[in-house]
C-alpha cells in the first residue's frame, strides 16, 4: 500500500510498528496530557473547539462542544466511554489504533475525561477484537503503573479509573444508547433521545461517548495546537480521516487521508483503481449503513459539507468498491440481511420493513416480481429510512434507497414485465 503523502498526520500508519508506553513517550507521547493538566480545562476545551474536530464514529458531532456540554452539567458524577465496538462491516480503523498505538488512544481518553470532569471511564471493545482487548488491558495496567491513569495522574488531583468492557457480538451496541444499556447489564437496545447521553447517560449520569479515532486525535490537538491541526484538511473539515478501503481495488487496506481529497483519488490513487480489465460499477461509502454511488459521483470531496450535499454518508470511513461484474441487488440484499439479523426488533419499520424488503429482493431475484414490487420496495425503504427508532434502522435503508436511485434500471431488469419484454426482443 502506498505511503501517506504527508509525513506528519495524526496517525501516520505504520503496520510494522507497535508503540509501547516507553516508545510512545519517547516520541512525545503524554506531553499533551501534562500540558492539559497544567491548565484550566477551559483552555484545552477551547483548543479542541477551535480545531474543528468532529466525531469520527459516523455522526460527526463537534467534539469540543460535546465535552463542553459535560463540563457545564451541574451533576458531579460523570462518565466517559470510548466506543470501540467497531461493528460496521468493512471498517477496521479503530482496531489499528488499539493494536498499534494504544497509548495515543489512552492519552486522548484521559485528556477528554479530565476536560469533561469524569473520573470513571469504560472502553467498550467488541468481542471480536481479542487482540485489541489484550493490548488495551496491558496498556491500561502499564499506564496505571506509570501514574498516567488511576489516582493522582501525573501528580495532579485528577483521578481516572478506566475499565475495559467487552461487547458480546451485537452490532447494535455500537449505537451509543444501546451501548449504555449493555454496560448497565441490560439488553443492548437503543433508548429514547432526548435525553442525550451528555445529559443522562450511563446510570442516568452525564456521559461523554466518543469513538476511538476521535479520542486518538486529541493528544495532537492539545500538543501542537488548533492552528497546527487546521493546516491539515479543509476549512470545513480539518484533520484527517482513516479510511478502510476494500472490495474491487488493487490496494485494499487502511489509509489516512487529509479531508478534502476526492473519493476518486482514494479509489484510484490510493487504491490503485479497479482490477485490470474491470470498471467500477459502484462504490459503497460508509459501510453497511452507507450509500451506493455511481462512479460519476466520485469527484465529490471527502468533506462533511460536500458529502452532505451530495447525499453521501462518510460514516465510519469504510469504502467498498464494486466492479462491473457485481450484482447490485445481491450486494444490497447482503446488507439488508445483515441489518435484519442485527435489528433489535423494537420498532416496526426496521423489524418488519427489512424483512419485507428482503422478501421483495428475493422475489425479484427469482424473477417473480413486477414493477409494482419495486415501487413497494421503495415505499418500504422510505419508511425504514424516515421512521425507524434509531440510527441502525435509519441507516439500514441507505444502501436500498441509494441503489434504488442510481441503479433503478438494474432492479427493473429483474421484473417480470421487462423479462418478458427482453425475451420477446430476443426471439424477435
Amino acid at each position: 500500500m502506498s505511503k501517506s503523502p504527508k509525513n506528519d498526520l495524526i496517525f501516520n500508519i505504520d503496520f510494522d510498528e507497535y508503540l509501547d508506553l516507553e516508545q510512545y513517550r519517547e516520541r512525545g507521547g503524554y506531553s499533551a496530557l501534562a500540558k492539559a493538566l497544567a491548565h484550566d480545562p477551559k483552555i484545552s476545551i477551547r483548543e479542541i473547539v477551535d480545531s474543528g474536530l468532529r466525531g469520527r464514529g459516523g455522526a460527526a458531532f463537534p467534539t469540543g462542544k460535546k465535552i463542553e456540554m459535560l463540563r457545564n452539567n451541574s451533576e458531579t458524577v460523570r462518565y466517559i466511554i470510548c466506543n470501540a465496538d467497531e461493528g460496521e462491516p468493512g471498517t477496521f480503523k479503530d482496531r489499528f489504533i488499539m493494536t498499534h498505538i494504544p497509548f495515543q488512544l489512552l492519552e486522548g481518553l484521559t485528556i477528554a475525561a479530565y476536560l469533561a470532569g469524569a473520573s470513571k471511564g469504560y472502553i467498550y471493545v467488541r468481542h471480536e477484537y481479542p487482540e485489541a482487548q489484550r493490548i488495551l488491558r496491558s496498556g491500561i495496567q502499564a499506564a496505571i503503573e506509570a501514574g498516567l491513569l488511576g489516582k493522582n495522574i501525573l501528580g495532579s488531583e485528577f483521578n481516572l479509573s478506566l475499565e475495559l468492557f467487552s461487547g458480546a457480538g451485537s452490532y447494535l451496541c455500537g449505537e451509543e444508547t444501546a451501548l449504555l444499556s449493555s454496560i448497565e447489564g441490560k439488553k443492548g437496545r437503543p433508548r429514547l433521545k432526548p435525553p442525550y447521553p451528555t445529559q443522562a447517560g450511563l446510570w442516568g449520569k452525564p456521559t461523554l461517548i466518543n469513538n476511538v479515532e476521535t479520542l486518538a486525535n486529541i493528544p495532537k490537538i492539545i500538543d501542537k495546537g488548533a492552528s497546527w491541526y487546521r493546516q491539515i484538511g479543509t476549512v470545513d473539515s480539518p484533520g484527517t480521516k482513516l479510511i478502510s478501503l476494500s472490495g474491487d481495488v488493487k490496494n485494499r487496506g487502511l489509509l489516512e487521508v487529509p479531508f478534502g481529497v476526492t473519493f476518486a483519488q482514494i479509489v484510484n490513487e490510493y487504491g490503485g483503481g479497479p482490477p485490470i480489465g474491470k470498471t467500477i460499477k459502484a462504490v459503497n461509502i460508509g459501510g453497511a449503513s452507507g450509500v451506493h454511488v455511481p462512479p460519476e459521483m466520485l469527484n465529490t470531496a471527502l468533506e462533511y459539507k460536500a458529502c452532505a450535499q451530495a447525499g453521501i454518508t462518510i460514516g465510519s470511513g469504510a469504502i467498498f468498491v464494486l466492479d462491473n461484474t457485481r450484482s447490485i441487488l445481491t450486494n444490497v440484499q447482503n446488507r439488508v440481511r445483515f441489518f435484519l439479523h442485527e435489528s433489535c426488533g423494537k420498532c416496526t419499520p426496521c423489524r418488519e420493513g427489512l424483512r419485507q424488503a428482503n422478501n421483495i429482493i428475493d422475489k425479484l431475484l427469482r424473477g417473480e416480481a413486477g414493477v409494482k414490487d419495486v415501487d413497494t420496495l421503495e415505499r418500504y425503504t422510505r419508511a425504514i429510512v424516515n421512521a425507524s427508532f434509531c440510527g441502525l434502522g435509519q441507516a439500514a435503508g441507505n444502501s436500498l434507497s441509494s441503489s434504488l436511485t442510481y441503479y433503478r434500471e438494474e432492479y427493473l431488469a429483474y421484473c417480470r414485465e421487462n423479462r418478458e419484454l427482453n425475451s420477446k426482443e430476443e426471439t424477435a
Partner: protein
Amino acid sequence: MQWIQLKIDDRKIRVPEKTTILEACRMNNISVPTLCHDPELTNWGACRLCVVEIEGMRNLITSCTMEVQPGMVVKTSTPKVKEARKTILELIVANHDIDCLTCEKMGECELSKYAYEYGVKKDVFLGAKRKYELDDSNPFIIRDLNKCILCGKCVRACAEIQVNNVLDYSKRGFETQVGPAFNLPYGESECVFCGSCLAVCPVGALTEKQMTAKGRPWEYKKVQTTCPFCGTGCNFDLNIRDNKVVGITSNPNSPVNGRALCVKGRFGVDYIHSPNRLTKPLIKKKGEFVEAEWYEALKLVAEKFKTLKDQYGPDSLGALSSARCTNEENYLLQKFMRTVIGTNNIDHCART
C-alpha cells in the same frame, strides 16, 4: 408554568412546556394514530405510527416522544406522513394472525381500527408469519403471541403499573417476542395476575379467559362500580349481557386505581353468579332449612324481635352490621336497631 406556542397543521397552538407533540395534538382534537403509546406509561416510540413532519428535521418524528419547542412547525397529515403510516400498518399486519372472525378483540382492536382507516389490505404481504403455541396455562389470561404486535405496552404496564417486571422482550429482530423470563408460560412465571397487561393490550394477543365466547364488546352494557373486596376502593366496569355479569374491564377514569386492579378484583367477581347464591328466604323448621316467601320470613322475624324485646327489653337484641355492605345499608341497620328495637347493640367486625 411556561407556555409554548407552536404551529400544528397551520393552526397556532399554545400548550404547557414539556408537552409532547402527540399530547398537544390530542388537546386540540387533531387525531394521530398510536399503537404503543399510553398516557399512563412511559413514552416508547416503538410502533412509529404517530410520526409527523417537523419543519427543519430530516426524518419523520414520532410525536409521542418529541416535546414541543417554541416556534415548531408540525404537519400531521402530509402525503409523506400518510404514506409512512400506511406502510407501517401494512408491515404490522404482515406479521399478524388475521383471525378477526372469532377474535375476542373484534370491535375494540386498535390495529383493525387503523387498518380500516388507512385502507390496509392483507394481499401485499410476503413471507412467513410467526407461529407460536397458545399460552393457556392459567385460569385468567389467554396469550396468543401470533397476534402480538410488540408494542410493549404489557411490558411497561408490568414494570410501571404493577412494578412486577415479569414481562420483557426476548430474542431480536423478526424473532422478537414478549413474555416472562425464559419464555415460560404465564402460569409458571412470577406473574401475580393483576391483569394490567390485559388492560393495555391493543390487539387480541392478551384476552380474558372467562369472557371468551361470552359476547362481543358492543353487546356488553358497561357499568362503572366500586370493587367489593379490600379497602382500596378500586373502580372498574362490570360487563353485562342478559342480566349477567360476564366479566370486568378496567376503567381508566377510576379515581383511585386507573386501570390497575388485582387478581381478585379483575377475575374474582364471578362469585356473583355462583350456584351457591341464596335466592330465597329460608326458615329453619325442625333443624332443616325450608324455603319461604318474603312475607312469611319477615313476619316471623318481626314477631320474634317484638316478643323478645317486650319480654327482655331492647338491650336483649343485637345486630352485626357489615363492612361489606353499602353506607346506606349500614346507616339503615343502625337506625333500625336504634329506633325500631331501641338499643345501641350494633357493631361490625372492623372497628380498628
